[in-house]
C-alpha cells in the first residue's frame, strides 16, 4: 500500500524534477541588440491576436468611421514593441542585421564559413 503510493510520488517527482531542479541556465545572447530583438518578438507574439482584431475593425468599409477612429487610437495605445514591424531578422550566431538568409537564419559570412567546412547539409559550391 505504502509502496504503491511511493511509486506514484516517484513518477510525479520525475516529471516535476526538470522544472524544480535548478539547472544553471544562464545563457548570454550575442549582444544587447539581439536581446532587445528577442523581447520585441515575445511582445509581438503576446499582442498578435489583439492587433489582428483591431486592425480588422480599422481596415473596414462597413463599420462606421467613428468606430474606426476609436480603433486607431486603441492600437496606437498598445506598447510600441508589440508591433511585428519592429522585429529585425538578425543572424542567429553573430547578430548581424544585414545579409541574413532567411532559410538558415545566418548571416552570409557565417553561412559561407559553415558551408566551406561541409557543415551545412545539402549545400554545395555552385559550379555550372
Amino acid at each position, binding site marked *: *500500500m*505504502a509502496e*504503491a*503510493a*511511493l511509486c*506514484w*510520488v*516517484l513518477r*510525479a*517527482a*520525475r516529471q*516535476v*524534477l*526538470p522544472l*524544480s*531542479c535548478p539547472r544553471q541556465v544562464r545563457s548570454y545572447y550575442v549582444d544587447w541588440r539581439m536581446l532587445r530583438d528577442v523581447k520585441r518578438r515575445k511582445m509581438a507574439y503576446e499582442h498578435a*491576436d489583439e492587433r489582428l*482584431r483591431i486592425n*480588422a*475593425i480599422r481596415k*473596414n468599409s*462597413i*463599420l*462606421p468611421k*467613428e*468606430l474606426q477612429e*476609436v480603433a486607431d487610437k486603441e492600437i496606437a495605445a498598445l506598447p510600441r514593441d508589440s508591433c511585428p514591424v519592429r522585429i529585425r531578422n538578425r543572424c542567429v550566431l553573430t547578430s548581424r542585421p544585414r545579409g541574413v538568409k532567411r532559410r538558415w537564419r545566418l548571416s552570409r559570412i557565417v553561412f559561407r564559413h559553415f558551408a566551406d567546412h561541409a557543415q551545412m547539409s545539402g549545400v554545395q559550391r555552385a559550379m555550372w
Partner: protein
Amino acid sequence: KDKSAASKDSTPEGAAERQEDGAETPKQQLLDIIGNMKVEVSYRKKLQKLKASENKKQAMNKLEGPDSEGSVPQGITENTQRDKPLNPELVKAASAVASSLPHDKKQAESELLAQLRRHEETTDKLKKGETVNIRNVISEMTVKRQSSAQWGAKLSGRISLQFDEDGQRIRPERSSAQSMDSRRSLKVGKRLNIFTKASTEPEHALKTVSSPTIWDLEFAKEVAAVTAQPPRNGFEEMIQWTKEGILWEFPIDNEVGMEDDAEFHEHIFLEKHLEGFPKEGPIRHFMELVICGLSKNPYLSVKQKVEHIEWFQKYFEEKKELLQEI
C-alpha cells in the same frame, strides 16, 4: 557428499589396482578389503542421505500444512523475509533431521534452514498472488498429438507450394488445426492475470490513503536524482531528450499537441455564436464576414475561433454608448 564422490572416484582406481596386482602380499589384500569396506560404507551413507532428504521433505510437507495457516497473519505487512523469524517448530524439525544425518550436521542444518526460508518466501508470494505458478499455466496445456500422416502432409505442404488456378496457395492444414483447438475452448480454466491488470480492489484501497507528505516528496526526489544516471551512450541520451520533449518522436506525427476533437461542422457553421449581436446593421454584416473567414481557416482550433468571436462581442459591448450616438 564430497567425500562419497571422492570415494566413488577411488573405487575404479582400487579395482584397477586389484586387477593389476594379482599375486599380492597378504597385507595388500587386507588393505584392499578395508578399501572395499570403506566403499560399501560410503555407499550406505549415500543411501542414508537420500532417505534422510526424503524424510525431510515429507516432514516439511507435513509441517507446511499447519504452518501456512499460522504464518498468514505474519506475512501480510511486509515483504522482507530475513527479518521474519522462522517458525520454531520448523526449526526444531530441521535440527532433528540434521542430527539424524551421518556427518556435517551443522552444514546440513544451515542448508535445511535456508531451504525453509525459500519455501516460506514462495508461499508468501503465492498468497499475495504476485508470481505466476507454472503449475497453473501448464495444467491447461496439453501435448498436441499428431498422427505421422498429418506430420508428413505438413512437411510436404511446406516443401512444395501447391498453387490453385488463381495462384493462391492451398492451405488444407488450417482447418485441421482450428478443429483441434476448438476441442479445448479458450475460456476454460482459471484466469492467470498475466496480460490484464490484477483486480482493482487494491487500487480502491490506495485512494483512501492521504496525499503523500512533504517528506515523502523529498525522499522521492532524492531517489529520482540518484537513479537518474548520466546516459552511457548516444541512444540513452536520445531517449532522455525524447522524454524531456527536446527530440520529436519518430515516425514524425504531424498532429502532436494538436488535439482537435471537433467535427467539421463545428468549424464551418459558426452562426450559433452570433446570437449576442444585433440582427441588422453594419455590425452584423461585419460579423458575418468574420465568420465566413473563420470557417475557411484550417489553422485555428474551434476554441480559438470561439474566442475570436467572443472578443468582438466584448469589444462591441464596450463601445455600445458610442454606437448609440451614431
